[in-house]
């Protein structure tokens, strides 16, 4: 036979027990031809383009998932940053277009649309200011449109005024969605060095270097990796563990490549790229934290977590890069707290802290992700936490991000419940030491040195 029994049963086991799935098929759509100074006309053009390009996305994804027996969990849309599409410095215009995007997303059956995005790493335009001013209202009154703001890049440094502004915005968004534990903040990602072809939400936007429309695929499979390590047993050394991770990552990536190419063919668009990120969900067995536990840590956050995560992240990339010539996006392990059963547990018992998470984000993607903190956390402290994470991205030439939720009325010991893929999380402690005067200085932290890096 073309394939051995063992090979076929391995794949079946990966899907049934390892929960191998295609985490997201994201259709990137350029909106550069939808710009119009009349907000109503702009909203109409944007809506029509999303419907024209995306109407078959859901059906085709279901068809491809059935053909290959590989579940496709999410179908999503990523758009050109809206700050490049709406050419008027009026918050009401952004609100109108955002509502049209939200409705169009609902019509074509996607659960998230990314691209309510501004890039202000070096400074804001009047249009960026309008987009940001409308953001709390947009996130509180739309269901699926996700926002992102670029606050830093290695070449520009860190926009500290922007960090402070976003600290205040996060407080505002949390207050407006207080009845749902501040869920609006779960739809906002603050970036250093973002990629333009990320298929994962909430941080996806479709960069201006991309084609008219393309398929971006995010594969996942922390469960598959965990099973491969488990099979080795506790006696295997870390070199052998890395080897097992590589081999599994290769197979996972091949599955994603097949689905991505077929989706692109079915929709008549190009295959943009495959994102190799290991992304957890709250479902049992679908946890990146559990991979670390299988490697030998009692819980994520234990000493050794940063080393274990570096190896995991690196081995996944090495296996995946050989499997596909279209690797892109973020391509690194995600460690969102509220979306990962083992991370939730570790946060609950205090095994993992914001400070340890910050260290771990220096060796993986993406950053301080889905972290709930006391509602009383000040805008200045939020801005300082954001700035720290931006600094890690800037200095290390990598993407980092912050998605933090100051849950209104909640404090240490409380829980927030977002439901669905966003999961639930214990409120984590924030340092009480003030950074207020540092943050209030504002300005820009200059770009870090590119040479003499020893």
């Amino acid at each position, binding site marked *: 036979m073309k*394939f051995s029994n063992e090979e076929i049963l391995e794949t079946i086991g990966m899907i049934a027990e390892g929960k191998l799935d295609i985490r997201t098929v994201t259709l990137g759509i350029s909106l550069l031809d939808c710009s119009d100074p009349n907000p109503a006309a702009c909203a109409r053009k944007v809506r029509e383009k999303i419907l024209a390009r995306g109407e078959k996305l859901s059906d085709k994804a279901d068809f491809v998932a059935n053909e290959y*027996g590989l579940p496709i969990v999410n179908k999503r849309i990523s758009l050109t940053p809206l700050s490049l599409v709406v050419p008027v410095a009026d918050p009401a215009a952004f609100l109108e277009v955002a509502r049209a995007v939200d409705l169009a997303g609902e019509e074509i059956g996607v659960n998230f649309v990314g691209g309510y995005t501004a890039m202000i790493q070096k400074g804001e335009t009047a249009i960026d200011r309008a987009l940001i001013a409308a953001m709390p209202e947009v996130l509180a009154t739309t269901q699926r449109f996700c926002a992102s703001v670029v606050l830093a890049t290695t070449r520009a440094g860190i926009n500290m005024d922007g960090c402070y502004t976003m600290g205040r915005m996060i407080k505002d968004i949390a207050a407006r969605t207080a009845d749902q534990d501040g869920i609006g903040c779960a739809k906002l990602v603050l970036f250093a060095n973002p990629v333009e072809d990320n298929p994962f939400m909430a941080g996806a936007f479709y960069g201006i270097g991309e084609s008219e429309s393309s398929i971006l695929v995010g594969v996942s499979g922390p469960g598959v990796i965990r099973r491969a390590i488990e099979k080795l047993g506790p006696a295997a050394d870390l070199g052998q563990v890395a080897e097992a991770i590589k081999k599994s990552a290769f197979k996972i990536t*091949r599955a994603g490549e097949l689905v991505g190419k077929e989706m692109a063919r079915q929709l008549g668009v190009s295959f943009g790229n495959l994102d190799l990120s290991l992304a957890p969900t709250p479902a049992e067995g679908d946890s990146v934290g559990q991979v670390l536990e299988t490697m030998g840590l009692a819980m994520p956050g234990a000493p050794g977590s940063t080393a274990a995560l570096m190896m995991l992240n690196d081995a996944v990339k090495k296996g995946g890069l050989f499997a596909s010539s279209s690797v892109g996006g973020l391509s690194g392990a995600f460690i969102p707290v509220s979306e990962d059963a083992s991370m939730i547990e570790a946060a609950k018992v205090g095994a993992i802290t914001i400070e340890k998470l910050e260290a771990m984000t220096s060796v993986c993607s993406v950053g301080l992700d889905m972290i709930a903190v006391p509602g009383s956390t000040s805008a200045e402290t939020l801005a300082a936490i954001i700035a720290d994470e931006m600094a890690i991205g800037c200095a290390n030439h990598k993407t980092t991000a912050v998605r933090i939720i100051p849950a209104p009325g909640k404090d240490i010991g409380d829980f927030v419940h977002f439901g669905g893929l966003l999961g639930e999380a214990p409120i984590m402690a924030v340092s009480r030491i003030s950074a207020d005067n540092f943050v209030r200085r504002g300005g820009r932290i200059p770009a870090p040195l590119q040479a003499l890096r020893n």
Partner: protein
Amino acid sequence: MGKNKKSIVVTVIGKDEVGIVAKIATALAEKSINIIDINQKILGDEIFAMTLLADRANSSLSLPEITAKLKEAVKDMSLNVTVQDSEVFQYMHRV
């Protein structure tokens, strides 16, 4: 890497009983799906595992329809049936 869009892999796993292969083979034949190769073994004492490569070029059924037909054929048995385009295995296990 040969690409045959019509080739499918059927996997049947579960409790061993008399007549599983016969029922699956009959159901496939009724829908003009031609068996190309079969691997079958008993794992441990009683776990039945069969992988089967077939050609559906002459069948008008979609994969979900084939899956439903096979599940119907063995519905009184404790078996798990999956049907996938063989390209999945080509991609995952062959460089």
